[in-house]
């Protein structure tokens, strides 16, 4: 492929694929004000069901498409009925977290069933290409375009002329009023999830055929691209989602043409951030549209935190402090070191997501910034490791806050999307900025932990070091939250408009929270880098961001002690029960789902 026409065709075809995902997201957002993070998992399921149909059942193409659409729709209906409907009267954040949990569970089930190795999904169309102007086009391109256009037309006819379609439109504009017209909102939700899932599943099938290959990493990428396209077009706006998708496809394709393949995703997320900053309601939102519904007050489950007497905390610190002197195995120490590192990240996230209410889905980026800063400083400039780690924390605090600052004026789900995108951007910059980060090769030979010239290589010393740092950060954070600053943070979380009316500067307080949180996360990443001795752009990924979020919810959002307890529980329990590594993510997903459903305030309660 060389001509611009080729890149245009490719962009439009890929855009069509995104549209199938994004339209489903837009429908669901319209009716439920929910960003369905499980959409990519349904796309993944669609691809694998397609593989079963093509490779094992040898179905002809039309039958393959229908089969995939039906199975995917069924999965969508199950998600709606059992995952989301029970949460209808729950806090606003609950369904969002539930879709994240569902996506973990679905991805892992697919991985366990089909193994994580990529599989070949043969296209069922002849591999010929026709000359069109200066470019070429193949039958599969035409099929994808055809499926995209006909789905859009069918959807248009459904929304405009069918009774259920009217109900969907009415419910997406005013749910309560629609109910008062006799619209059964549960049926509308079912319809919307079924349609969204069918489209998403078919999209996965087509992509698999397009690249001749499927693997389980497709899921998150699809969700991200769909979300980007949907937000670009205006959340909940179905035609907007189609245009947003085509635009995204073109931007990516031209970006690849100019800079190379590894820049594809970078362009996608930059487009998202630019749109979020300049037109948070999407490109096509008219000025009259109300700003995104405030998700205040009920966004986080209110609860009475569990009171833990101060002496009990000190006893716990003492017990864990003397633990290495007792006859415990290295294995236990190793596990707990991981828990302390995760605990630092959780402290950071519980402050940002819990106390000030900015639910970040890109927190691993802060780890990455800290890790790379500390590793590079100690390797290339021979900065002492202790200082390098602190520098890593400071760099995370500064850079993290600057990067996140465009999202300060966003609210609720939009913050989550923006942070997710910023997290991806950081990882992509690390991948592409080879002169500094060494790109995909990663950094190896990072010096081990040391303090004042003494190398900390024994598990005992590493344990003490990480534990001490975590306790210190926790104490600092507790002190911070008991000051007027903590109150201001919570005021902003509970009602940012009221907080502003009382003279609180949102930017200043959000910055302060991210500076402090960024420091804690950066230090955690820095320590991890010296511990692992090798890091690359995938060491700190979205999965870790979600794991941290699960920890924080498990402990109770905003709860400092809860963050540490959650980290120990989530790292420790799978070890105690000797759960095989490949089942762990599945367990995390299930824990998240159960928490959201039965104890949204977490173990120790939100503060």
């Amino acid at each position, binding site marked *: 492929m060389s001509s611009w026409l080729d890149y245009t065709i490719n962009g439009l075809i890929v855009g069509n694929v995104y549209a199938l995902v994004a339209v489903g997201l837009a429908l669901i957002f319209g009716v439920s004000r929910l960003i369905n993070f499980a959409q990519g998992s349904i796309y993944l399921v669609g691809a694998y069901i397609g593989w079963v149909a093509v490779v094992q059942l040898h179905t002809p193409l039309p039958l393959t498409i229908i089969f995939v659409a039906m199975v995917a729709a069924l999965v969508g209906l199950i998600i709606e009925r059992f995952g989301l409907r029970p949460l209808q009267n729950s806090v606003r954040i609950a369904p969002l977290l539930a879709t994240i949990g569902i996506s973990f569970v679905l991805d892992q089930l697919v991985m366990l069933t089909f193994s994580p190795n990529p599989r070949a999904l043969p296209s069922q169309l002849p591999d010929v290409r026709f000359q069109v102007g200066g470019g070429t086009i193949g039958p599969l391109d035409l099929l994808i375009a055809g499926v995209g256009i006909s789905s859009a037309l069918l959807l248009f006819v459904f929304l405009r002329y069918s*009774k259920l379609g*009217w*109900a969907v*439109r*009415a419910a997406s*504009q*005013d749910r*309560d*009023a*629609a*109910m*008062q*017209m*006799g*619209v*059964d909102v549960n049926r509308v939700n079912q319809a919307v999830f079924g349609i969204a899932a069918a489209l998403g599943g078919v999209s996965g099938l087509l992509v698999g055929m397009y690249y001749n290959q499927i693997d389980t990493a497709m899921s998150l990428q699809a969700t991200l691209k769909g979300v980007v396209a949907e937000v670009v077009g205006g959340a909940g706006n179905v035609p907007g989602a189609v245009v947003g998708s085509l635009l995204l496809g073109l931007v990516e394709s031209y970006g690849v043409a100019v800079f190379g393949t590894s820049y594809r995703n970078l362009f996608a997320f930059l487009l998202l951030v630019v749109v979020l900053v300049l037109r948070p309601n999407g490109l096509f939102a008219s000025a*009259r549209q109300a700003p995104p519904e405030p998700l205040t007050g009920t966004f986080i489950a209110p609860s009475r935190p569990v009171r833990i007497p101060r002496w009990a905390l000190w006893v716990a610190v003492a017990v864990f402090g003397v633990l290495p002197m007792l006859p415990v195995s290295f294995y236990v120490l190793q596990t707990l070191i991981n828990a302390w590192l995760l605990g630092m990240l959780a402290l950071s996230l519980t402050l940002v997501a819990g106390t000030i209410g900015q639910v970040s889905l890109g927190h691993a980026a802060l780890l990455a910034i800290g890790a790379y800063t500390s590793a590079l400083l100690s390797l290339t400039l021979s900065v002492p490791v202790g200082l390098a780690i602190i520098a890593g924390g400071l760099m995370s605090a500064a850079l993290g806050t600057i990067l996140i600052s465009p999202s300060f004026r966003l609210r609720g789900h939009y913050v989550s999307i923006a942070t997710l995108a910023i997290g991806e951007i950081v990882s992509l910059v690390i991948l592409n900025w080879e002169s500094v980060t060494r790109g995909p090769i990663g950094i190896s030979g990072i010096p081990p932990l040391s303090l004042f010239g003494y190398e900390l290589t024994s598990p005992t010393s590493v344990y003490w070091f990480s534990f001490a740092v975590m306790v210190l950060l926790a104490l600092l954070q507790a002190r911070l939250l008991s000051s007027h600053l903590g109150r201001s943070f919570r005021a902003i979380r509970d009602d940012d408009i009221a907080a502003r009316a009382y003279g609180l500067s949102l930017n200043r307080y959000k910055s302060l929270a991210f500076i402090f949180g960024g420091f804690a996360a950066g230090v955690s990443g820095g320590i991890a880098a010296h511990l692992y001795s090798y890091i690359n752009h995938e060491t700190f990924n979205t999965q870790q961001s979600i794991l941290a979020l699960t920890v924080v919810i498990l402990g109770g959002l905003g709860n400092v002690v809860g963050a540490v307890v959650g980290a120990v529980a989530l790292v420790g329990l799978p070890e105690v029960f000797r759960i095989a590594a490949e089942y762990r993510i599945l367990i995390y997903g299930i824990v998240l789902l159960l928490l959201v459903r039965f104890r949204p305030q977490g173990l120790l309660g939100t503060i």
Partner: protein
Amino acid sequence: MTTGAPEPLLALSNVNTFYGQAQVHFDLSITVGRGHIVCLLGGNASGKSTTMKIILGLVKPRSGEVTFDGASLIGLTTPQIVRRGIASVPEARRLFADMSVRENILMGAFVRNGREAIAQDLDKMLTLFPKLGQRLSQRAGSLSGGEQQMVAMARALMSRPRMIVMDEPTMGLSPLYVDRVLELIRTINQEGVSVFMVEQNASLALEIAHEAYVLQTGKIVLSGSARTLKDDPRVRDAYLGGSEAA
């Protein structure tokens, strides 16, 4: 109107409602006679709108009974209640802002079948609300408050309800439209539709109502025929918060 109380169409008896720990209704009992206009008066936070939500099944009472035409509404979903023959004109109209006026009115007929009868009723609405004729293809959100109120009323009538519940139908309207709305409520009622309306504007509401109830912090403090309540000084007192009233 007949002097004797007609057979009740809607009856709330001993309803107690809670929002979390806070009690909103205390043993609330209200009846709406068949063919009557009944008005629920009260100040802010007296529990008026919640009463409407109880009838529509949007809020569930903790105890008490709600019956419509002799059958209990407790445990039914809002759409089921709408299908029993109760239509609503919600507070602040709540039109589907991005749908056209025609689509909004037709949404009112969502529970009905039969294209022709629905089309006929749409024509009927245009004679009842002649101004809407030129606005049919306009976005509902672009109409003025008064016009939106007309659409909301037409929308409610399209389900051919036996009863309409209205939440502050005159709120935020110009005096001209207030008169027009009250007149229309009377017209609707004369065609056999019972009306239950929640209002803050007592003197206006009492002009068209048959009976009225005065609600104060969740309790009925006064009730009776509109004619007797109109001259009762306690109506005004109750409304402005009892003893605090000037």
